[in-house]
């Protein structure tokens, strides 16, 4: 038998499975390409270096945060707190470098650490205290926002060193640094999901928590780590955003969690857990960004983009469900 195994296995599953996997990403990827081509034709500005640079830079923090949220969604959880946590981290990081004189790199790490700490609280509330992830992170959404408002009185914090701008605005050659950052986080996220115990157990816990537990997987530890990663990436996203505006903005990221969740879901992640990929989430994040950008370029009433993005979410998930049902029936 093992000799007959295997061209198909090496290629990754049966042809049909492969196709259906490709097609589901294609649906989102196809939409991304269609929108891209359409905008290239419809708007003379769209393909300009400046505009593409802007899209890339503006999407960077959403993409980084959405990758963390994807990891949580794969475990059948949710992280609603990322927007608030990003704001808190961004402000703390800026305060560290602008007011406390901490070196930029350490201050950035400090911001990420604040995010990770918020994630740790989320994770412990979910895995040890047994709170529903929606509730645990809804609480953190409010707590983190309050914590950033209290000391700042909701006022922006200025005075960052110039070198800090590099993170969100710098360029290496002709490639924006924030895009490089997204690429690095995405590759790391991909490796974690595909090649580490953490990633495998995330899928297993999301697919069947009890089976995972009875297979000897230390559920609490891994779930907690997943929320810590999501928090840390939210913190990192917050630092990128702070760098882009060269200040700490207590009002940053209100509603950002919804963009992150939308990106993951458009990219094929299932809120029931067990499904989701980094590539899909990136596609989702950039699709949302293109729709926003295109609406501005084509002078579409700004409120329409909200409607369009909502419809894209519906279509993406309906398509996914339809595809899965068809696959199930044909078995």
């Amino acid at each position: 038998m093992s000799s007959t195994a295997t061209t198909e296995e090496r290629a990754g599953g049966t042809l049909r499975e492969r196709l259906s996997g490709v097609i589901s990403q294609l649906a989102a990827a196809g939409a991304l390409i269609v929108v891209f081509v359409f905008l290239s034709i419809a708007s003379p500005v769209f393909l300009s270096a400046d505009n593409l640079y802007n899209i890339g830079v503006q999407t960077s923090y959403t993409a980084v945060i959405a990758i963390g949220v994807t990891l949580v969604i794969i475990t059948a959880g949710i992280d609603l707190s990322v927007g608030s946590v990003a704001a808190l981290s961004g402000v703390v990081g800026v305060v560290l470098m602008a007011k406390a004189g901490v070196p930029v790199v350490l201050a950035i790490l400090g911001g990420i650490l604040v995010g990770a700490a918020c994630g740790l609280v989320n994770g412990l509330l979910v895995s040890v205290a047994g709170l529903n992830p929606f509730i645990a992170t809804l609480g953190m959404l409010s707590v983190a926002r309050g914590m950033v408002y209290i000391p700042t009185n909701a006022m922006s914090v200025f005075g960052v060193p110039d070198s800090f701008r590099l993170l969100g605005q710098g360029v290496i050659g002709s490639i924006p640094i924030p895009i490089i950052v997204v690429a690095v986080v995405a590759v790391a996220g991909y490796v974690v999901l595909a090649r580490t115990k953490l990633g495998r157990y995330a899928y297993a816990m999301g697919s069947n928590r009890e089976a995972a537990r009875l297979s000897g997987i230390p559920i609490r530890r891994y779930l907690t780590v997943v929320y810590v990663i999501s928090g840390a990436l939210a913190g990192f996203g917050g630092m990128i955003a702070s760098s882009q505006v060269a200040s700490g903005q207590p009002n940053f990221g209100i509603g950002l969690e919804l963009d992150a969740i939308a990106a993951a879901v458009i990219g094929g992640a299932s809120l029931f857990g067990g499904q989701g990929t980094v590539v899909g989430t990136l596609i989702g994040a950039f699709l949302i960004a293109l729709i926003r950008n295109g609406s501005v370029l084509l002078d579409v009433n700004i409120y329409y983009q909200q409607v369009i993005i909502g419809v894209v979410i519906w279509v993406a998930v309906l398509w996914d469900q339809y595809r899965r049902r068809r696959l199930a029936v044909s078995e």
Partner: protein
Amino acid sequence: MSSPETKTPVVRFRNVSKEFPGVLAVDSVDLDILPGEIHVVAGENGAGKSTLMKLLSQVERPSGGEVEISGEPVEFHGPRYAQSLGVAMVYQEFALASHLSIAENLFMGREPGRFGFVNRRAESEEARGLLERVGLRTDPDRMVSSLAVAEQQRLEIAKTLAIDAKVVIMDEPTATLAEREIEDLFGVIRDLTSGGIAILYISHRLDEIFRIADRVTVMRDGKIVDTLPVGDLDEDKLVRLMVGRDIENLYPKTEVEIGDVVLRAEGITRANVLKDCSFEVRSGEILGFAGLVGAGRTELARAVFGADRMDSGTVELEGRELNIMNPQDAIEAGIGYLTEDRKSEGLALQLGVDQNITLAHLPTRFGFINLVEERRIARRRRDELNIRTPSIRRSVQVLSGGNQQKVVVAKWLETRARVLFFDEPARGIDVGAKAEMFGLIEDLAKEGRGIVIISSYLPELLNMCDRILVMHEGEVAGLIPRAEFSEERVMALATGIEEAA
């Protein structure tokens, strides 16, 4: 049941077929169901039984042919319409709203009352009458969530009475019941038929087919193989019709040399669940856990495995005392537990066959999963256990029950377990797959492992085990060596008639 041939059939399938993309699930079926008969539809998984029932209850639309009810051809309008014609279905997983009361569930969608208000008193009174008929003597205002499984099933049956069903479809209704509850259920079913209701009864379990059926229809590959009065059948013939070939030996028990004690559990206690339970399993031995549902068999296995916390007691593996706090500790020590419910506790359904096989013991290198090794392991286990799957990367949810069970076994073999607990290993799998599963268990014992089988189906234990430990209300009621096996002896201990020797 005097000369049933003269009655008009309640249901008549005429050349009915159902085609799914690539599969002919039901193939040109002709079948009459008579009023007042208990008609068992038997066959292996995938034989088309459930699909045929769905065509009757209008969950699925036939691709060809015609269904008649009470002599009238029926059009297809969906499940609600089928209900209005008197076709009721008692699902294996109950379709009850657990936060509502019994009465509210009974009349859901047809609440008595006017102007959108519910007449609660009428509801309760009518409910009481219906409950009486299914032998459920309880307050109709009770919450459904407080009912035991057997009671919930009665409620489902009462629902069929509430809609004046002419034919009631029951899909493996005994799967979750204890022996005594099964006998009661059969009594209720017989009462229903005396009122002229026909029962269409889907079952895997040979013993109950002979206990309950008037006539038996055997399906295979979407076709009806034969329809016979139960008196014209015996177990061998029925299995042959279902499988299409002879099954040589359903329980391939052989003489295995029994060695030293592998696992010793002493004084296992869990408040209100287990009381001072002790047992040991030897290398090469198959020990059975018998008892009524709720006697604590699964709970004992779960406590030893660390799935539930124990209040006191000790577990020794090969002479070494273990401190088991969770399943992880048990697995590391060399204990495996194959859960009763594969889908909700045993498998990560969306993951691949390979990923499920390695779930409890991931091959890693430098902290990363070794994917090459993982595939090698999965292929080896697939060949060794004869897991039939189009690809090792295929998600396990598309596999048959028997093959899913083998994936779970493969997972535990990967952990190098010295002792394996099999909780209802044959539940929900085909006769053919069952024989294969027991052959596999036998092989594992031969390799020197200690095996525990938990089963509610006594013939499995009587045939496969070297000793049977009988539990009663959370305690060990007795331990019977193979030489003294008898069904009566086990039942006497399980029901508490005979005290522990």
